[in-house]
């Protein structure tokens, strides 16, 4: 058991010295400051976390509202062009779509008055690319479909055929054209190296 009487008598004698008294007051002040920091710290720390969370939530709310507005505008824009969306599938199909392409090439050749003697393709995927999942959407890219064609006809007809190919909705690049004299006086044979495109998936 501490004897408070002797304790106070001993320390009151000690505090009679002015220097000791000021050191004692300073020490007590510092101890109080330390105690205050330790007591207040968790509360202030929690307040700063809450403030940060509230600010972040406000920022997220603002950006999400903006995105919702943009999505509504995008939906309205999409509805206004939904009737023309098939054009994208025609211009850039999700498979080589050889049937349509070859039929167009043959019809164009007939219409232009040239004969399509050969049509050679490199290896191509026959299954359409999956375009409905989010995973594959990010990997979609244009893939080239290279082929060679040999056409015979007069200069004017071949020119019309090449022009028609260039104006085809599905983008076709003429990489190389090699002209040789045909069997008759007016006929020319052209070996065309061409490139059309389709929508494929890039490797990860």
């Amino acid at each position, binding site marked *: 058991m501490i004897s408070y009487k002797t304790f106070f008598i001993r320390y009151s004698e*000690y505090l009679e010295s002015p*220097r*000791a008294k000021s*050191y*004692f007051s*300073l*020490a007590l002040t*510092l*101890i109080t*400051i*330390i105690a205050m*920091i*330790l007591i207040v*710290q968790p509360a*202030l*720390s929690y307040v*700063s*976390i809450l*403030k*940060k*969370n509230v600010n*972040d939530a406000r*920022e*997220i709310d603002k*950006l*999400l509202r*903006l*995105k919702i507005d*943009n*999505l*509504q*505008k*995008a939906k309205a*824009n*999409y509805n206004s*062009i939904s009737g*023309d969306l098939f*054009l*994208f599938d*025609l*211009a850039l199909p999700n498979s080589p779509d050889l049937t349509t392409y070859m039929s167009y090439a043959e019809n164009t050749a007939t219409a232009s008055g040239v004969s399509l003697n050969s049509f050679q393709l490199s290896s191509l995927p026959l299954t359409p690319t999956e375009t409905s999942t989010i995973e594959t959407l990010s990997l979609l890219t244009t893939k080239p479909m290279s082929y060679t064609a040999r056409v015979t006809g007069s200069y004017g007809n071949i020119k019309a055929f090449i022009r028609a190919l260039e*104006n*085809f*909705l599905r983008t076709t690049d003429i990489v190389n054209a090699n002209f040789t004299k045909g069997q008759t006086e007016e006929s020319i044979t052209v070996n065309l190296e061409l490139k059309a495109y389709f929508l494929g998936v890039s490797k990860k």
Partner: protein
Amino acid sequence: MIKISKNIIFLLILTVLTLASWFSFQVYRTITKESITKTAESQLQPLDPNLDLNFIDYLKNKNR
């Protein structure tokens, strides 16, 4: 006795400074810490609602 008190005062001042700097850094870290998750960040990516109508007109003209 005065010498001991000086040392104690010095120790107390150092303690106050350490606690104050620790507390300040903790608050600073809380404020600057990235709290938006990557999923939320990807959902917050801006979206341009405008469509290239000129290109659609170009395709329409080509299809005629």
